[in-house]
């Protein structure tokens, strides 16, 4: 296995009564690490920590062997892009939303934006006011917005929750092809076991803010070590 792109050590993040605790987690280049866990388990909190914009209260997050946080270099933090769980559309057209990342990087390339819109079947909506989109369409635009940044690390926080099966397949296929082409590293938070099996090259299970288990498919899904992971895989109540 190659050098980890991310290393998390002794990370704690408190949000009211909730605490996320990751004793140790490594994420490797070109991985698709799926973060599995029930709603409210801490997947989103972990994804936000991985952006480097919300540092943990304790512990250390390293990205490419350097500390990642609000003071990380701009060039480094711009290697990471996020498609959030509840995307907020920025004022303007769908095209302008997707062009946001390249524009702020000073390398706006309309051809790339158009290509991503086409790949996600959003071309017809390009000129539409982004704030008139449905929830599902907004999620697709959020994925397009993150892909247009041409990141090295793509953070996806339940990006297909509101999509129909055809669009789910579309997103999964595009991410898979981008990963192959661009050596993309993906962290994909989901509570959908079937999706996790389809897309993940590694998987982690989080419960009540605690990282329970990390492993490689198919063992992780078929023979999990921890009884709580096993219960989750079998659809039993673990909450």
């Amino acid at each position, binding site marked *: 296995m190659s050098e980890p792109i991310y290393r998390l050590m002794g990370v704690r993040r408190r949000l009211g009564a909730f605490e996320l605790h990751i004793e140790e987690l490594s994420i490797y280049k070109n991985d698709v690490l799926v973060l599995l866990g029930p709603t409210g388990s801490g997947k989103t909190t972990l994804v*936000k920590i991985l*952006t480097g*914009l*919300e540092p943990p209260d304790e512990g250390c997050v390293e990205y490419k062997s350097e500390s990642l946080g609000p003071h990380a270099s*701009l060039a480094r*933090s*711009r290697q*990471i*892009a*996020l498609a*959030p769980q*509840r*995307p*907020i559309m*920025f*004022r*303007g057209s769908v095209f302008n939303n997707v062009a*946001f*990342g390249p524009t*702020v*990087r000073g390398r706006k390339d309309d051809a790339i934006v158009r290509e991503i819109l086409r790949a996600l079947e959003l071309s017809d909506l390009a000129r539409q*006011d982004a*704030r*008139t989109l449905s929830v599902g369409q907004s999620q697709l635009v959020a994925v397009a*917005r*993150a892909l247009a*940044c041409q990141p090295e690390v793509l*953070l996806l926080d339940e990006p297909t929750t509101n999509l129909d099966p055809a669009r789910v397949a579309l997103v999964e296929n595009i991410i898979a092809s981008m990963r192959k082409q661009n050596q993309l590293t993906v962290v994909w938070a989901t509570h959908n076991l079937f999706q996790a099996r389809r897309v993940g090259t590694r998987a982690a299970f989080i419960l009540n803010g605690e990282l329970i288990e990390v492993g490689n498919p198919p063992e992780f899904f078929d023979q999990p070590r921890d009884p709580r992971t096993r219960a989750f895989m079998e659809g039993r109540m673990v909450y």
Partner: protein
Amino acid sequence: MANDIAAIVCLSLWVAAGAVGIASIIGLPLGLWLGNINERVRRVVFAVVYAGMALPPVVVGLVVYLLLSRSGPLGFLGWLYTPQAMVVAQVILDLPFITGIVMTAVSTLSAELRFQMRALGATERQVRLYLLREIRPAALLALATALGRSLSEVGAVWMVGGNIQNHTRVLTTAIMLETAKGQFALALLLAAWLLAFALLVNVVIVRLQGKPAS
């Protein structure tokens, strides 16, 4: 007479536009910054800025007069009874409106919006510029309010401008003077000009505001 009216109209527009321009240069970035400050400090700052909106023009006029008078700390500028003095007074009056409306609009935007912009690679400065786009209708409202206040203000500009013919006489002070002289027809004509400008400016601003966000 026509030349006099033209001079009054031009000076009114020059003073109002100059004051709103300067107040915008200060107030827009200030409002963007204040709209983002932490919750505890925000309430105090908001109260101070909102209080600024209620500044009585004659009080501002008095303070600017004392500052610019020959024996005042800024007397060396020689600005008293000049259009520059009128601009200074109006900047003080406009600034709380522009700052207050912009900071209130920014504070209503969710922190998550800022986070999502940052998570796509925007710097803090770029986020602020994009936030200005997000609050464009409110920012234009702030400009309209400030311009309306500048065009209609009379107390401060009279005190620091002196209502000198062909020098510091603007529409509002001219209307007051003509009314006092019993020249109601001329006062009404000037009032019509004032209203026409106010309407024109607001039509332009409403057009610039564009469609409401859905």
